[in-house]
């Protein structure tokens, strides 16, 4: 089990630095200069008007939100990302969170699963169940959601390279348990492009990776109509050190690529468009973040209507999940993270998110303890029920400052779209290392400004404490790894191996013929093929990415 709690901390620090100077001129956390004052003149200069550019909540281009009533109608979904150890342990945590009032589930898988490995692969040693839950077979998937009503609770799964395999596990498991696919609601991240830009959980080369993404989109559009088939993610791009504008631009550019590929497969723009969702970071700079979400909505509406000729309004609505910025959390004075998370969550809500994960204060130290994760959830509940920020849609709409920032970010994102097109499109720009270089350079620029104390981080380069107060953190011992190895050995022993081989051969055949591999994946799942076996069958045909592809 996961619980013995230990104390950490207590290092003594050098004497606190004096109160820092504030940067002049002021800049956002991304380094964008902010004028001393914004007025109606700025709006006039940029041609911003309510009728022409801003619009109304629930109306194209949805700058002010995708619903007319926004949170007066329905609050955002409070969805905390969770997962560690074995499927049994994570299932317990899921039921704990539902009991505390959480309204959706969000699954974190461990690194071996995210990399398409099994718990018994040699590379997995020491990593099984450590940063998320270990899933090797469909039986693990059934255990993970045991005693949870999947027709009532929406489920999010954060997985990318093996997304199609894991989604096949989920659907095959749902079939075995008797759930109706048409009633299942949830999201699978299934966004491989940002893995190439930033997150690096990659198995296959770019082109076949994208093909798998589209296979999932295509299958679910027909059979699981309420499922969000891809969650186009800027979160990880930002965590890797990008600016807010890069996060915005690269994410939407990824979305454009998925839509293009879906259309070239012959899918209908509205069938695909209405099931796309987005996932953004909620970083420290409150107004920059709000402007980012607003710009994202209006840009995407424009892209869907004017680039892809979507007919339905629902295809033009950018729906997004937000997570507070993990990279902003500090290990010094960790309780201060509570305040950072609260302001970041405020920005996400003022920016009109549809669901939100608020980080726990201890996440630079370990996976969150029950105490820390409860406080994180309570932060959202205070926002929703005490602060009054939910009482009117887009309360900052029309603000000279916010509207100006929104327009600026739109423009800068469009400039990036042009640069990407100019390089020959998404895959060519990945191949040349464009995204990785842009992000790494931005991360370095930011770090230099922190080192020079041009950017202040409370408790790190200012307002330091001599004594570090310790907090209790969650310890994960070796127990789960052993338990999971036993689960896997049992599954391998009780299955029909020749049925597994036949199913895997069918996966390869489908991949070779460039057919949609999804039906074959589902049969492999039902036959109890493991994640690694299934991914290897695919890799035999699609190829494996060599590390050399990533500089």
């Amino acid at each position, binding site marked *: 089990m996961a619980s013995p709690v230990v104390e*950490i901390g207590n*290092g003594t620090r050098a004497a606190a630095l004096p109160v820092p100077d504030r940067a002049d001129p002021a800049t956002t956390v991304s380094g964008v200069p902010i004028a001393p004052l914004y007025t109606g003149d700025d709006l006039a200069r940029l041609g911003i008007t309510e009728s022409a550019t801003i619009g109304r909540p629930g109306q194209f281009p949805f700058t002010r939100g995708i619903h007319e009533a926004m949170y007066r109608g329905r609050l955002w979904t409070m969805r905390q990302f969770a997962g560690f150890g074995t499927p049994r342990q994570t299932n317990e945590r899921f039921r704990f969170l539902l009991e505390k009032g959480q309204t959706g589930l969000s699954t974190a898988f461990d*690194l071996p699963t995210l990399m398409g490995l099994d718990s018994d692969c040699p590379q997995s040693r020491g990593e099984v169940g450590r940063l998320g839950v270990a899933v090797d077979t469909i039986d693990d998937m059934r255990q993970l959601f045991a005693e949870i009503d999947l027709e009532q609770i929406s489920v999010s799964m954060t997985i990318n390279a093996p997304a199609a395999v894991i989604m096949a596990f989920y659907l095959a498991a749902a079939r075995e348990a008797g759930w109706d696919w048409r009633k299942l609601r949830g999201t699978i991240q299934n966004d491989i492009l940002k893995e190439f830009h930033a*997150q*690096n959980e990659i198995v296959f080369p770019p082109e076949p990776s994208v093909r798998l993404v589209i296979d999932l989109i295509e299958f679910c559009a027909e059979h699981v109509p309420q499922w969000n088939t891809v969650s186009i993610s800027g979160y990880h791009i930002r965590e890797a*050190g990008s600016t807010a504008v890069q996060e915005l631009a690269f994410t939407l550019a990824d979305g454009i690529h998925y839509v293009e590929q879906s259309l070239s497969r012959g899918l209908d723009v509205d069938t695909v468009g209405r099931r796309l969702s987005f996932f953004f970071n909620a970083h420290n700079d409150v107004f920059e973040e709000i402007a980012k979400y607003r710009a994202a909505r209006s840009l995407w509406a424009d892209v869907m209507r004017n680039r892809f000729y979507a007919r339905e309004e629902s295809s033009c609505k950018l729906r997004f999940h937000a997570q507070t910025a993990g990279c902003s959390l500090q*290990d010094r004075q960790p309780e201060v993270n509570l305040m950072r998370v609260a302001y970041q969550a405020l920005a996400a809500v003022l920016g009109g998110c549809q669901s939100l994960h608020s980080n726990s204060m201890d996440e630079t130290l370990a996976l969150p303890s029950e105490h820390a994760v409860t406080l994180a959830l309570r932060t959202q509940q205070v926002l929703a029920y005490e602060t009054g920020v939910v009482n009117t849609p887009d309360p900052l709409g029309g603000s000279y400052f916010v509207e100006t920032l929104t327009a600026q970010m739109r423009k800068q994102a469009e400039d990036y779209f042009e640069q990407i097109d100019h390089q020959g499109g998404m895959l060519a720009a990945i191949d*040349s290392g464009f995204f990785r270089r842009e992000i790494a350079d931005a991360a370095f620029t930011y770090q230099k400004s922190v080192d020079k104390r041009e950017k202040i981080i409370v408790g790190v380069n200012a307002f330091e404490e001599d004594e570090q107060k310790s907090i209790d953190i969650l310890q994960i011992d070796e127990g789960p790894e052993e338990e999971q190895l036993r689960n896997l050995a049992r599954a391998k022993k009780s299955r029909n191996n020749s049925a597994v081989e036949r199913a895997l051969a069918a996966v390869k055949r489908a991949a070779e013929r460039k057919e949609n591999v999804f039906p074959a994946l589902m049969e492999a799942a039902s036959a109890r093929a493991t994640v690694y076996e299934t991914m290897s069958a695919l890799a035999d045909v699609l190829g494996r990415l060599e*590390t*050399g592809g990533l500089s």
Partner: protein
Amino acid sequence: MIAHAASPRVVLAKIGLDGHDRGVKVVARGLRDAGFHVIYAGLWQPIEAVVQTVLDEDADWLGISLLSGAHMTLIPPLMDKLRQNGLDRVGVLIGGIIPEKDVPKLLELGVRSVAGPGTTIPEIVERMHQPEEHPAVEDLIRRFRQKDRRALARLLTLASRGEALDALRHELAERPKSCRVAAFTGSGGVGKSSLIGRSVELLRSRNQSVAVLCCDPESPLTGGALLGDRLRIAKPADDAGVFIRSLATPGGQQAIAKNLDVMMALLAAYGFDTVILETVGAGQGDTAVREQSDVLVVLLQPESGDELQWEKAGLLEVADIVVVHKADLPGSDRMAAQVHEHLNLPGARPIPVLKASAAKGQGLEELWAKIEEPRG
């Protein structure tokens, strides 16, 4: 100009499965700007590969980044393996999310320093600036004669810094040069490292040993350099038949050319069958490279424009073989035809123009058949 003779050499690598490389890339750039020669070995590195890289690159420091929580599983075997290879003197710095209770355990294993979140770049530079003792040149040469790979790695460092040249020239004078040297040149982004990676695979499948020297320019201001070519050259972690060395070349190309002869002779005397030299193309430096190699391969890639960019023409003049790389891209046939027409005028020495693609594994056999053709 500042003398950069003693830029410390640092290998940075990520081990385990986690892909969080923000920190390691920031540190790489920070150390470069502080005058270090930084060799970035990349993601998902097996322990054996990291140790081999440290050895071949003659690193003074090894920076390991991991945020997966698997440090207590992965660091002990890493430290063992370093010790087994006689690399105790290499300073090891661990960066990432390391709970405080594990820090003393890591230090006890021989880790020199642990840099958690919030560590500044100047702090890391400060920690890495502790000088290291190295064996005397005579001792290194004695061990070199016994095929000690660490001694080879160290002597290459000395040669690149212009140190101990007389002793080395003296030692190497009596040894006949017996290996084939192929230089690959072409502008940035043309795919030199990827094609070399494929070439190494091919040569190894024929049981030839091969050394690769990857040259990249260093900053004239700080003397620092960020050297990432080796991560595009995939090889089995424990294959001793491949030696890859990253070299920072100073601005003035003639200086490197002078010492290049010593480095080549060292690799030949050590017994490699083939040496591949990778250089950024363009400019007169390539003629100096020409003198050090048996075959000069110039890489081009298909261009979107209609006409060949003729500033490359000068580079083509010195080529023995021209490769139109990324042959899977549109326009490669036209490019090859244009180059062929330009180079193979009546009466001139014929220069083969080949097409290849590292991504698709095409054209490698033909390329090496041409490289290995006897020439006058």
